[in-house]
């Protein structure tokens, strides 16, 4: 049963497409994502176009959880205008907010790099996709994983298990093939079994209203979410 919500209007970022167009775009964006990894607009497009069916399941999953339902109701967005990064930097050590700002700084990223959702017509499902993209950095932070290839592949598998998005599966599996020999070994021996356990047993992160927990101690938060981290070595984002 599909949950029907409002259809997006033709505002600046939404593009209405028909079946013929979506077919060509799916193939094209898929190829371009592989051959030109700098085209993150193509990666985003491919992710959206392959997400049909899965997004409505995710929507239902969120609505069945009180926190998830609240997120869907309030539709918070994550970017540097909404988050006061300077304020978070003043929080005590080991709080989620402080750890997050440190994570951004060390990996040299900002919360503003996520592309808008362009090809999903249902307004709420488009938001679900947007939310998944925007909490990616929170996911990295809470799992204690760097934004190098190894960390990214590990996070992708985590997201794949929790959300079942085809794009996550593809990225996780193909990403693994691109790891160097040393990282592949670490991935198979250490990361993979650990992340599978985490993904299966933790609270789905799509249902976590991260913005409300900035002042909480990060290890407490992890415990509440039923998450463990790896021992700090090759994976810990603080060197």
């Amino acid at each position, binding site marked *: 049963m599909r949950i029907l919500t409002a259809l997006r209007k033709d505002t600046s970022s939404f593009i209405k497409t028909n079946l013929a167009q979506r077919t060509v*775009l799916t193939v094209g964006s898929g190829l371009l994502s592989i051959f030109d990894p700098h085209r993150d607009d193509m990666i985003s497009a491919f992710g959206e176009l392959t997400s049909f069916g899965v997004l409505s399941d995710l929507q239902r999953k969120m609505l069945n959880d009180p926190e998830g339902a609240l997120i869907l109701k309030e539709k918070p967005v994550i970017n540097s205008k909404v988050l006061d990064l300077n304020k978070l930097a003043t929080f005590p050590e080991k709080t989620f907010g402080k750890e997050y700002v440190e994570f951004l700084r060390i990996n040299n990223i900002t919360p503003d790099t996520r592309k808008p959702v362009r090809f999903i017509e249902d307004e709420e499902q488009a938001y679900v996709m947007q939310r998944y993209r925007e909490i990616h950095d929170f996911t990295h932070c809470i799992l204690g994983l760097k934004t190098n290839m190894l960390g990214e592949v590990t996070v992708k598998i985590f997201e794949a298990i929790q959300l079942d998005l085809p794009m996550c599966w593809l990225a996780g599996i193909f990403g693994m093939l691109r790891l160097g020999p040393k990282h592949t070994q670490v991935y198979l021996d250490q990361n993979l079994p650990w992340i599978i356990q985490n993904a299966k047993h933790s609270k789905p992160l799509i249902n976590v209203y991260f913005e409300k927990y900035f002042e909480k101690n990060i290890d407490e938060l992890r415990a509440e979410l039923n998450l463990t981290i790896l021992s700090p070595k090759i994976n810990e984002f603080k060197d």
Partner: protein
Amino acid sequence: MLKICKINLRTFTNRHISRLIHNETNKNQEADFGFRKVKYEEKQTKVNEVFDSVAEKYDLMNDAMSFGLHRLWKNQFIQEIDPNPGMRLIDVAGGTGDITFRYLSYLKNLDSTKFEESQLPLVTVCDINDNMLSVGKNRSVKMKFKEQIVWKVGNAEKLVEENDNTYDVYTIAFGIRNCTNIENVVKEAYRVLKPGGRFMCLEFSKTNNPVFKRIYDFYSFQMIPVMGYMIANDWNSYQYLVESIRMFPSQDEFASLISDCGFRLVSYKNLSNGAVAIHSGFKF
């Protein structure tokens, strides 16, 4: 989608014929920006934004969208012009230089001595968009035609820097449909041409072949914006492109307009089933 195209075509044709008949300058009214309507003064700015965005990948997209056919159309265009040594050309909306380079190559192959001895500059390239001109300038260095060309920013409707009766040939290829007032462009062309000079326009036009039309409509409305997004990360500019093609007058309507602006011996030639047409007129 196709149904919407048909309805729009009908309303467009009626609207356009009445506009041509009345011959009014719609300064206080609206202009067509593809299927959208914008304020008259705004159209130029909006077109400029489109070309700012597409300039870098313009040539690549042309090849992709027309499957390389645009090269044949442009070659044919130069053949029709049949240039002679010493003929001075103004290539309006000439942007990345496709017509200019072909023109100069033709002259050089015809008689290379006379080409070297010709009075410079041989060609003035004029375009409203600086980014497009930059792409053209870079290409001219690679093609070794740097000296023969003068590049200018300008508006086809008002070529302020050009004197009357200056040029032997005036070309505008795939540019006139982007201008706000086509009639003004043609009038300016008349002004800057010498007596005996020739106006040549290469532009998308109307196809009457019903089978071809269905395929063409499907391809241009459905696929071109998708290709624009994949190649140049720009859906909207290419959406504008295909709509602007539909809003342009038919072969006969455009020929009438050229005639009304004073040109004689006005004729046109269809290419690719009428998808493209070459219009020609002489100033006597």
